[in-house]
């Protein structure tokens, strides 16, 4: 309980720091008034806006107002196309989430078994080949993967589309591509592009973790108890090896959302990342600030979720120890 409270307090602190960075960006980079009004606005119009935004009041008050606004999803208006920022982000959110979810599933479903296999068969030539391939995987930047996939499957073979989401279906505010054939077709290349790097990473991490566990005493003791290899490996070693993966996978969801920026750019996928990149290119501060706070929130929630999950699955954290030390 104390642990959870402390984690929540830490999370709130991180959010406050993120909000501060976003606020300082918003307040001091460029002139918000100039950014929000037309080029030919009169001095009086400028002053009116200045009053309305409270830009003449003390910074602390302004920050409090910014945080208050952020809590209600109020981030102002995009300088570039004058739409409310929150609306823009929520509009793009489903596209990014759908992309990230599929990429994560691909990465986990392939990465974990491959990692386990190459740890258990590490003396085989196939395993060291796999190691090299995975190294190529983490050495190839996401955008190169994307471009090469487009070149082969869209330009040369013409099998799959190279941009957009295909047809989408609207369910409430959520626009999904999961329900149409063209939506799935459009998803394949971006999802594979995004997954490849993570797949290689998972594979390498699981392999290293598995090798580490296989060296431990309790694995030797399990063998000495006469347990068959299958049980030793998959009941005892694998379970222990997968514990850290919970943390890593949680962190990697965040990483996927970030790398979605690149993937979405390559495939002109209408997600949050693409939006953010355009904001960076045009120095559209309100969008950048809102994206930062929004992503920060997602990461903090993920981190807390991972920690809580970890305490639930690890008995050493779940139950207090009588003799934790010697």
């Amino acid at each position, binding site marked *: 309980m104390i642990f959870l409270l402390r984690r929540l307090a830490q999370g709130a*602190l*991180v959010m406050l*720091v*993120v909000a501060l960075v976003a606020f300082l*960006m918003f307040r001091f*980079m*460029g002139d918000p008034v100039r950014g929000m009004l037309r080029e030919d606005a009169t001095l009086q119009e400028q002053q009116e806006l200045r009053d309305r935004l409270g830009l003449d009041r003390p910074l602390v008050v302004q920050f409090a107002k910014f945080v208050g606004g952020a809590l209600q999803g109020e981030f102002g208006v995009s300088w570039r196309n004058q739409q409310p920022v929150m609306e823009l982000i929520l509009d793009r959110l489903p596209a990014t989430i759908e992309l990230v979810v599929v990429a994560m599933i691909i990465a986990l479903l392939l990465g974990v078994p491959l990692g386990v296999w190459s740890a258990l068969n590490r003396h085989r030539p196939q395993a060291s080949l796999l190691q*090299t391939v995975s*190294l*190529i995987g*983490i*050495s*190839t*930047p*996401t*955008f*190169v993967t994307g*471009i*090469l996939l*487009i*070149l082969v499957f869209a*330009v040369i073979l013409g099998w799959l589309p190279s941009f957009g989401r295909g047809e989408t279906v609207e369910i409430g505010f959520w626009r999904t591509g999961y329900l149409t054939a063209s939506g799935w077709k459009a998803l394949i290349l971006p999802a594979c592009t995004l997954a490849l790097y993570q797949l290689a990473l998972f594979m390498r991490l699981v392999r*290293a973790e598995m*090798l*580490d566990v296989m*060296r431990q005493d309790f694995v030797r003791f399990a063998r000495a108890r006469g347990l068959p290899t299958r049980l030793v490996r998959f009941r005892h070693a694998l379970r222990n090896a997968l514990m850290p993966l919970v943390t890593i996978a949680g*962190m990697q969801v*965040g*990483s996927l*959302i*970030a*790398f979605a*920026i*690149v993937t979405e*750019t*390559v495939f002109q996928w209408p997600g949050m990342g693409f939006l*953010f*990149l355009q*904001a*960076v*290119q045009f*120095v559209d*501060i309100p969008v*950048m600030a809102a994206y*930062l706070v929004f*992503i*920060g929130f997602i*990461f903090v929630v993920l*981190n807390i979720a991972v920690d809580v999950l970890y305490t639930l699955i690890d008995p050493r954290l779940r139950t207090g120890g009588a003799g934790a030390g010697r």
Partner: protein
Amino acid sequence: MQDAEARSPGRIARLRAGNDVLDSFLSTPRVVIAAAVALLMILTAVLAPLIAPHDPFDMAAISLLDSELPPAFLEGGDARFLLGTDSQGRDVFSAILHGLRISLMVGVVAVLLSMALGVTVGLVSGYFGGFVDSVLMRLADVILSFPTILIALLVNGILRGVLPSTQATATAVLVLVLSIAVNEWVQYARTVRGSTMVEKGKEYVKAARLTGLPPRTILRRHVLPNILSPVLVLATINLALAILTEATLSFLGVGMPPTQPSLGTLINTGNEFLFSGIWWVVVFPALTLVVLVLSVNIVGDWLRDALNPHLR
């Protein structure tokens, strides 16, 4: 002296440890090749202005008549342009050499900067602990929990808002280096802090404290030399990561300008012509980038295993 254990297997193993790094290097052809390729590429990058057949930035020497020529070994290729030309008639091979130079420069400077900062912070934080340590490490936690590319983009956006003109090469390089270093110093700081705390607990550091040596001397003479191998591994792996990050930022159009293209910029500009069939302006820079990063990664991967035998 006739210690019974003097000739035990344990001692033999320890004696051999020194030569093992070199041995394992020479006995892994993959690593030897990777190191050779990396060295060759670094050399090429340094000498790029001397060995590039054309000057891709000399507008006078470029002729639109030479534009979109395929590589020399394909039909319709021109022997003057080994890897073909782009839409403006620039030699792709020369552009790659110059791009490689910029990519490597940004990477190396970013690594050196973040290493200097991170190692110092890590040593101080790990050795003294306390309040400064807590604050620094919370900051590190926050930075680490955000992915590299996101922070790089953010710092990039802020700097581009603050600095006057990003079209100047020096400014662009500075922005890139800072965007990368803001992420990477944290890794050195974390690693060095951890190792420093381990070394601090070891008895030779306690012995140095008992001698009365001041902390500065203990850190420089006793702790630093013993924590350098993880730093070396990290520096190698981070060079690969820095090159990747630079390429990604440039590809996204917030890195090097098209007038001073890095490999990422080349791929970005070439990408626009992907559908017009001149694939060589994208594929060759991309291959160069992947080969460079891969060879650095192979060396880093091996180094990590070789310097830390129990991880194998």
